[in-house]
């Protein structure tokens, strides 16, 4: 009987995949929003890893959960900030594609 749900490796693999997708999207996406979405995936990948270790390996199973909760808080903060930046940039440049934002380079 294949019991995927009770194996640590399954979760770690999923976490790695999500992380990989996130990196892939970060590089590939031309627009800020696409990058934001990819970044959320990266964070999720990390969270899944934490949760998996928390479940299977950690002596204190609260730690992973707490770290995941913190990641969520950071993700929410990030989303809010990125959204406001996107809006501000859009106002000034009429575009949110990274190509068009060359002016922002210091």
């Amino acid at each position, binding site marked *: 009987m*294949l019991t995927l749900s009770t194996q640590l490796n399954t979760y770690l693999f999923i976490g790695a995949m999500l992380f990989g*997708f996130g990196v892939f999207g970060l590089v590939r996406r*031309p627009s800020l929003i696409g990058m934001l979405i990819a970044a959320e995936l990266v964070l999720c990948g990390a969270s899944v890893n934490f949760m998996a270790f928390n*479940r299977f390996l950690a002596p204190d199973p609260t730690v992973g959960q707490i770290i995941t909760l913190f990641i969520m808080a950071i993700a929410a903060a990030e989303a809010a900030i990125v*959204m406001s930046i996107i809006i501000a940039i859009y106002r000034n440049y009429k575009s949110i594609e990274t190509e068009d934002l060359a002016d922002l380079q210091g």
Partner: protein
Amino acid sequence: MNLSISPDIVPIFREGIFFGLLIVTVFGALLATLAKRMTRAILGLVVCFIGIAGLYFFLNSHFVALMQLLIYVGAVAITICFAIMLAQPDEMKMAAKTPALAGPFAILLGGAVTWVLASTAMKATWMAPALKVNEGTVKQVGASLLTTYSMVFELVSIVLLLAILGALVIARSGRDKIEC
């Protein structure tokens, strides 16, 4: 909380649901990264989040699973949706103007990261702890959040506060009064 798996549940049923969740998660992630339209990408992200919430459920932390729904689906996804609505009302026009090299490079990089992480995870031998300090229930999470991790907790709240204020400042600055 009974952590043990009851004998009378049909394991195949359980595994089937789990497998479905895996597929949903991966499908969502794929959609989120590959979809041409941003709204589809958001949909993918939401699907992925729901899948991950399911995974957390299987990892026996319902609290985090529900928080995942509440925060990611209920707040982050909506925020991103809003960003799209505000900044890209004309999304049909928005072709994926990916730079020529970005695609292959992205695949290479993403693949490499996945491979490295996954292979490390698979190869490593993980050792289960001898004993668990606690069960990881909501109560215990709450307790350690306010004792051991209280400093981090405070820091995170400050970060959130600053993020909200910063977001307001940035988003408002460009907006003048309505001129007619």
